[in-house]
């Protein structure tokens, strides 16, 4: 321990100016985060934009500090003076980790406390969340970077590798539309956990390997494998498998034997309430009759996968984004079929075979939100604000500390609404964690905007429901003509 402190003190002396800069940056992060308002005003929007920009730069500051302190006793190479000095490798690793804990983790922890307290959430009530966030934050944002620093010996090398990885991630997550780490809704926590687990495990293998044996080539191999796995495995997880896993984790089985889903041939195609265009695919809304949903409960689909089968036994898979939704009291199955398949089969009778995972929502609560500049607490959703513009546009934002709510906020927020409005639930995360992995401790739990016809409207209701349970209920629709249900 004496050597740990000795090396730590040396590093503090070496990086005293960098530490000051990073601490100042973290303090500014706390101030900006604490004063960013959920209400969209010109002023708060300015702060928010600054905050978003800042959230990009702050991690770069942390990573710079981490790389610099690790590189002070760089591991690759054989010309560093410390290699032939009586360093205990465990002490060296301990000193570096202590440095990171003191100058990155602790300031972030304090900044989190300041941000949530300033936003009206007392930090003392969120201690387990703070701890969970530190674990996720360290495993995702720090440990892999520490590992990367141990296989590089120059800042330029470190940042080149980091930039390369970041570009690859950007391409995969954004350009290919494979999701984002900042989305934790529904069962996204499973893919996110896998991503964090792969990177964290690789870091935990690389760190002792580098500090004990300095096997840089092997460590680089592990790092490359981990990055490739982290980029591909979570993105390529079949949604059916994800929701199957989620279903297996559900504490108690859900009684769903009464729920029946069948094709409703009596209904004709009507003007749809919702379009979801997918390039190169035909959009088809198939009417369904859903019966047996317990009174007071709502049914939402988490994942529906559809296989089309022609009369001669040929099969095609949907292109994704299939969903079950409710509009004006009726359920619809929205399927996207490749244009070529649609053109070929549109007038032939086909069978749709589905694999479908559902969640039953219930325990509805309604909270009243008045149009005002100040935010108000909405149970389950955090602090919500409603801003009404001159054009009678209502803009509603809710934010909560650490994680997305487990509640579903229904987008039907006009007073006296009935089930006749389109019901697309927002939010709702099945994550068992107490925190998420974002840079900011605040999470947007609900965002919505709408144009209201009644100019005298002074308040709206936000309805929330909880997930009562998940279940799988596959169904088949026989001999339908796709062209009859095409959305033009």
């Amino acid at each position, binding site marked *: 321990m004496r050597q740990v402190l000795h090396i730590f003190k040396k590093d503090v002396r070496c990086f005293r100016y960098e530490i000051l800069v990073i601490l100042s940056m973290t303090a500014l992060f706390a101030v900006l985060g604490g004063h960013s308002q959920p209400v969209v005003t010109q002023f708060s929007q300015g702060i928010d934009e600054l905050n978003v920009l800042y959230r990009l730069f702050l991690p770069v500051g942390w990573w710079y500090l981490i790389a610099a302190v690790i590189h002070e006793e760089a591991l690759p190479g054989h*010309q560093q003076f410390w290699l032939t*000095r009586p360093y205990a490798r465990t002490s060296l690793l301990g000193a570096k980790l202590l440095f990171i804990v003191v100058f990155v983790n602790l300031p972030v922890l304090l900044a989190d406390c300041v941000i949530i307290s300033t936003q009206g959430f007392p930090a003392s009530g969120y201690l387990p969340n703070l701890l969970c966030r530190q674990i996720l934050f360290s495993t995702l944002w720090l440990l892999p970077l520490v590992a990367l620093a141990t296989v590089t010996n120059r800042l330029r090398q470190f940042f080149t590798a980091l930039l390369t990885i970041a570009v690859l991630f950007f391409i995969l997550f954004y350009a290919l539309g494979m999701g984002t780490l900042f989305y934790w809704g529904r069962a996204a926590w499973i893919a996110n956990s896998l991503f964090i687990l792969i990177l964290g495990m690789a870091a935990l293998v690389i760190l002792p390997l580098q500090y004990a044996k300095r096997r840089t080539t092997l460590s680089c191999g592990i790092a490359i494998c981990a990055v490739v796995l982290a980029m591909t495995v979570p993105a390529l997880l079949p949604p059916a498998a994800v929701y199957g896993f989620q279903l297996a984790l559900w504490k108690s089985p859900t009684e769903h034997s009464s729920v029946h889903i069948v094709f409703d041939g009596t209904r004709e195609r009507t003007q749809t309430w919702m379009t979801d265009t997918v390039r190169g695919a035909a959009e088809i809304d198939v009417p369904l009759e859903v019966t047996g949903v317990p009174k007071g409960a709502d049914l939402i689909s988490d994942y529906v996968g559809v296989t089309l089968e022609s009369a001669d036994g040929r099969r095609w898979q949907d292109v994704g984004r299939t969903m079950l939704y409710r509009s004006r009291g009726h359920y619809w199955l929205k399927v996207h079929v490749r244009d070529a398949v649609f053109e070929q089969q549109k007038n032939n009778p086909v069978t749709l075979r589905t694999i479908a995972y559902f969640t039953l929502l219930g325990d509805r609560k309604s909270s009243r939100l008045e149009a005002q500049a100040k935010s108000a607490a909405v149970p389950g959703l955090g602090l919500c604000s409603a801003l009404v513009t001159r054009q009678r546009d209502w803009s509603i934002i809710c934010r909560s500390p650490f994680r997305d709510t487990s509640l579903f906020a229904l987008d039907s927020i006009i007073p006296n609404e009935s089930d006749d409005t389109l019901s697309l639930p927002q939010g709702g995360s099945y994550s068992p964690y107490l925190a998420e992995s974002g840079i900011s401790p605040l999470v947007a739990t609900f965002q919505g905007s709408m144009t209201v016809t009644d100019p005298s409207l002074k308040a709206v209701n936000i309805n929330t429901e909880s997930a009562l349970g998940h279940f799988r209920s596959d169904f088949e629709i026989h001999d339908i003509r796709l062209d009859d249900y095409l959305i033009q």
Partner: protein
Amino acid sequence: MTCAIRTENLSKKFKDLAALDGLNLSIPEGAIYALVGPNGAGKTTTIKILMNLVHASSGRAEVLGIESSHLSRREFTNIGYVSENQEMPGWMTVEYLLEYLKPFYPGWDCALVKELQRQFDLSPRAKIRQLSRGMRMKAALTSSLAYRPKLIVMDEPFTGLDAMVRDQLTEGLLEQAAGTTVLISSHDLAELESFASHIGYLARGKLCFSEEMSSLTERFREVEVICAAPPVLPSEWPEAWMRPHTSAAVLRFVESRFDSEKTAAEILRRFPDARNVSFTPMSLRAIFLAFAKTANEAA
């Protein structure tokens, strides 16, 4: 004889290039061992393996009785390493470097540090990155002598230094490291000749010889034979007679196994018309060149 350093069939390959090829080296305790050889001979590679900075491809190396690949914190409290290429923490002042290193070594001698600082005229406030090459080497040597190590390993410590600094470094080393085993690789043969007790010659990854300096200088002579007529070199030329060449009636070569009586007798046996034979002692530099040129010609 107890060895401070011992290697057995030590080999190191960098891809297809054999930097070391079955090196067998023994350095007795207390010796000042000079490891010499041309550029690329494998001196630095040998030292790096001994210091556990790189791993050998095969064979083994022991340092102070421990497998070099297992050298740990405990062993390094008794080993000093100074290298021309060593990356020192440039941001530290000399004073802070010495203060920082102090707790790592139980045998740290503050009085010795002061003495060395005075001897080397080291400015304690100067940052290491601002020091000249010579001063940096002095700082490195001070930080390596301060704990009175059992073994000091120096890799090309004199390269690029002026004569004055080299002299100061050598003096400091000899005065303060008496009884310590020293392994030093250098191209500065004249400097080595003045203080090394043992010498090893490495060429193309192989140790050509390794012996006491006195025995080496004893067995090498430049030989000049003046014959009655221009001599003809016999087809069976002794292996120990290096770099023969003739000029009119004069034959010159380097005898690498000199024995005044035996060598003279052998010369007379091979050149019966020899009128005069002279033997001139050789400097380390001359021996080194004879070896290097012979090796180049053979290659």
